C-alpha cells in the first residue's frame, strides 16, 4: 500500500517537474502576492507599516496557496480519465487508493515548497515568527491543502468534465475567498458577513494563521482550525478514494 502510494507520488512529482516552468509559475504566484498586495494593505493595517501588513497577509496568502493551488489539481485526473490511463491503472495490481493518494501527496510536496518560499520572502521583508508557530503554520497549511486536493480529485471524478469542473470551482471560490478575510480581515466586514464567516472553513484557517504570526499560541482559533481541517481533509480524501470506483462508469 505504502509502496504504491510512494510510487504514484514519485511518478506525479516527476511529471510535474519534467517541465519545471509550470511549477515555477505556480510557486511565483504567492511571492508576487506578497510583493504586490502587501504594500496595498499597508494603509488598512493598524500600525501602517509594511511589516504589520505582511504579518496580516502572509498567513492569508499561505492558506490561499493551500486551497487554490490544490483545488485545480483535479483537472489532471479528468485528462487521464479521458485518455484511458486511469482505467489502465485501475486494472493494474496497484492499490487503488494509491492512484489518488499519490496525487494528493504530490500536491502536499509542491505546497511545502511554495510555503517555504513565501516564508523566506516574508522573513526577508522583516516578518518574524517563532519556531513552534512556524511548524504549526506549515501543518495547518498542509491540512488545508489536503482538504482542497481531496475535494478537487473527488470533484473531478464526479463531474468528469473540465468545463463543469471550472464552473463549479469558480462558483465557490469568490465567496470562500472573501468570507475568509483573505485580503481584508473580517473585522472590517459588516455584521452579516461576520455572522456568515465562521461557516466558512477557510476563515478559521486564516484566523489561526494570523494568531500564529502574532505569536498568540493560546488563541482559541488554532485548535478550532486544526479540528475543522483535519476532519475535512479526512472526509474529502475518503470521498476522492471512493470516487475512484466510478472510473469505469
Amino acid at each position, binding site marked *: 500500500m505504502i509502496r504504491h502510494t510512494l510510487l504514484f507520488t514519485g511518478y506525479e512529482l516527476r511529471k510535474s517537474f519534467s517541465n519545471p516552468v509550470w511549477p515555477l509559475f505556480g510557486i511565483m504566484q504567492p511571492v508576487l502576492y506578497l510583493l504586490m498586495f502587501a504594500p496595498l494593505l499597508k494603509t488598512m493595517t493598524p500600525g501602517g507599516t509594511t511589516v504589520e501588513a505582511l504579518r496580516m497577509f502572509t498567513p492569508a496568502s499561505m492558506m490561499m496557496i493551500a486551497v487554490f493551488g490544490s483545488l485545480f489539481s483535479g483537472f489532471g485526473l479528468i485528462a487521464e480519465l479521458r*485518455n484511458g490511463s486511469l482505467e*489502465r491503472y485501475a486494472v493494474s495490481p496497484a492499490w487503488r487508493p494509491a492512484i489518488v493518494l499519490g496525487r494528493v501527496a504530490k500536491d502536499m510536496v509542491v505546497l511545502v515548497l511554495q510555503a517555504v518560499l513565501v516564508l523566506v520572502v516574508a522573513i526577508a521583508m522583516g516578518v518574524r515568527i517563532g519556531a513552534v508557530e512556524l511548524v504549526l503554520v506549515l501543518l495547518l497549511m498542509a491540512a488545508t491543502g489536503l482538504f482542497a486536493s481531496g475535494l478537487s480529485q473527488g470533484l473531478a471524478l464526479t463531474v468528469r468534465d473540465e468545463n463543469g469542473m471550472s464552473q463549479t470551482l469558480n462558483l465557490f471560490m469568490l465567496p470562500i475567498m472573501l468570507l475568509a478575510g483573505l485580503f481584508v480581515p473580517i473585522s472590517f466586514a459588516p455584521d452579516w458577513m461576520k455572522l456568515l464567516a465562521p461557516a466558512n472553513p477557510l476563515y478559521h484557517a486564516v484566523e489561526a494563521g494570523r494568531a500564529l504570526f502574532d505569536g498568540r499560541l493560546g488563541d482559541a482559533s488554532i485548535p478550532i482550525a486544526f479540528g475543522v481541517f483535519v476532519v475535512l481533509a479526512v472526509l474529502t480524501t475518503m470521498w476522492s478514494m471512493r470516487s475512484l470506483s466510478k472510473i469505469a462508469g
Partner: protein
Amino acid sequence: MIIEAQGLRKTFTTRSRKGTQTVEAVRGVDLEVKKGEIFGVLGPNGAGKTTTIRMLSTLIAPDAGTATVAGHDLLKEPAGVRRNLGYVSQAGGVEDTTSARAQIMMAARIHAVPDPGRATAEVLERFDLTELADRPGRTLSGGQKRRVAIAIGLVHNPPLLFLDEPTTGLDPQNRANLWERIRQLREAGTSVLLSTHYLDEADALCDRLMIVDHGLVVAEGTPSDLKREVSGDVITLRVDEPERAAETVEPLARETRVDDDLLRVYVDDGEHTLPVLLRALEERGLGLSSIALDRSTLDDVFLAKTGRTLRDAGADA
C-alpha cells in the same frame, strides 16, 4: 483454457431528465479462450464487446455470470486476475505529458517486475520505440501511440492480453504493421482476447472468434468454419427485379438474400454456378447491371445470423 466465462450479463441504468433508461449491454455471454490463441470478439458498435472485455478485466462487476480468467476467479480473486493481465483499452491510456519510457517503467514497477529498467528497454526495442522513448506522449502519431499502449500492457509479460479495438482510427499501413505484431504475440505464447468491428481484422488475426450482436453471441468458431457454414462463395447481382431474380436462381443457391436492388446468392462453387445462373436469368429476360463473385466473408456470416450486414448494424448504433 485461459478464459472460461458463463452467462455474463450487464445492464446499465442511466438517469437523465427524460427519465431512467436501462440498456442491456450484455445479455448472457459464454466464452472460452484457449491458452496461446488469439480470440476475437466481432460485432458492430454497441454490441457489448467493450462491456464484455471490461467485465473480464475486473473493471466493472457483472450482474450475473461467472468467469475464470488466467487461473483466477473473476469475482473472488480480482487481484489475481489483474496480476496476470495486460489491458489495452480503446482509448489506449497513453498520457500526454509523460514519455513512453516513464509510462512503461511505471507499469513495470506497479507489477513489481524484477528489473523494471531492463524490461522497459526490452519492450521498447520489441515495438521499435527506442528512438521515440523519451518524447512526451502527445507528440506521437496514432500508430506510435498504439504501440506504446501495447508495450505498456506487455511490459510485465502477462500470459493474457486484452486488446479493445486495437486498430480503430489507424491508417492501412499502421493497421497492417500492428496486425503483424499481434501475430507475433501468438508465437511468444501470449493469449490474446481482441475486440473489433472490422471483419477483415477478425478474419486475418483470429484463431477463433465469436460474433456478438445486441449483447448476445450469434456465432462462434474459426473464421473458415464460420464462412463454410454460410457457403463457399457469394454472387452479388444488381438487377431490375430482385424478387423475381431471386425466385429464378433459388434452385441453384444455398440461400438468397434481397437487399434493395441487390441480390446476394450464396453458393458452394461460384466459378461453376455463375454461367448457369446467368443463363437462367437471361432466359427469364431479367436485366442485369452489375455482377460480382467473392469468397464469402464474415460479413456474410453476420448477415446470415442477424439479418443485417455489419455495415448497416454499425450505422444503427
